[in-house]
């Protein structure tokens, strides 16, 4: 169970409602890791966590007046995180549904891992991937290239599901950084 300084957050939220900008900044920075830790294990793609985190922060800003000092802070925050996560996923899957194309039409979608035009880029990715530790490479290949689920990779690699998602996410970030 994650220990959180709920009383401190509560006091910071009350100060923020009174317009204390320093307290507000401290509150948002302090709850940031909690938001991300709450989101990452529940998402199929850890890359979504940043987008949802931003939406959660904006929602906290919009709904600051709905927090009452006589109530606990954590249920309020968790409700906003859950709402924004669900909202994001609903929109995401609605978009994905719109983008579906019959297989027989053989159109390369943006979401395809490889297309004939991208073969040289794919080789660059493979080359860059070789610079990572063996275990990290395997996790990334299985989850991002071979299409295994985080749960399957976790079972095969004897790791926790969260650790697999975090590893794949970090590799992706690092690859993006290196290739850019």
């Amino acid at each position, binding site marked *: 169970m994650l220990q959180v300084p709920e009383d401190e957050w509560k006091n910071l939220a009350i100060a923020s*409602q009174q317009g204390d900008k320093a307290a507000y900044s401290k509150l948002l920075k302090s709850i940031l890791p909690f938001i991300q830790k709450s989101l990452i294990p529940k998402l199929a793609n850890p890359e979504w966590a940043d987008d949802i985190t*931003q939406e959660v922060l904006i929602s906290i*800003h*919009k*709904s600051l007046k*709905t927090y009452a000092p*006589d109530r606990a802070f954590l*249920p*309020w925050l968790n409700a906003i995180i859950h709402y924004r996560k669900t909202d994001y996923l609903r929109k995401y899957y609605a978009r994905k549904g719109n983008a579906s194309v019959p297989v027989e039409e053989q159109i390369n979608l943006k979401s395809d891992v490889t297309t004939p035009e991208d073969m040289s880029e794919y080789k660059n990715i493979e080359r860059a991937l070789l610079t990572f530790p063996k275990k990290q490479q395997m996790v990334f290949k299985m989850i991002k290239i071979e299409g295994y689920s985080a749960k399957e990779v976790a079972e095969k690699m004897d790791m926790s599901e969260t650790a697999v998602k975090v590893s794949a996410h970090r590799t992706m970030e690092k690859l993006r950084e290196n290739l850019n």
Partner: protein
Amino acid sequence: MNDINDLISKLEDDLTPVKPMVSPVLRSVIWFFSGLFSVLFVASIAGFRMDLHQKLMETVFVGELVFILILSASAIYSSAWLSIPEGAGKKHVLYVPYIILFIALCILGNDFLSHGISLDNFVFHTCIIDAILMGMVPVLLMIWMMKQGAPTAPIMGATMNMIAAGGIGYMGLRLTCGSDDVGHMCVYHILPFIFVGLLLGLIARRLYHW
């Protein structure tokens, strides 16, 4: 991560003092009396039923009104909770209106079976107009109250809104309409609210999005 830090800076710059919303109890009380007042106002314009004085002496009739008011009050209280983010977690508050509604439907069902209905054809009865007039202000008040907050369970919120507004509107119709026939009540006093409730449910996510 840089994007998030930039966002925090922007939100910090954008911060202005806010007054915390009043408690759900107080908001429920305000809404309940506003809704009741608006329904009684419309009822007084539409005209109270001729036998109202006599009916108010009947325990069953008064009991029905009190029961419906309790249903409405519990749904208003649930709506007030559902207008704040963590309200959807208050399961014990949310179950109460459903339980009361279930009992009300059982009583109605029993009346239906024991007395039958004398409704032959559907006609555009004045009760429908009265139902719309009596329900409109409470529904709008409910929507306004929900939108003041930050609801995270919009469909459940819309359901509670309609139980609350429907209950209070139904009570108003019992004061104006002279018919005690269960079929008439189902079709002309309850159905319009169910219909509006379904419409509200369909647009709830968009309506209460924030």
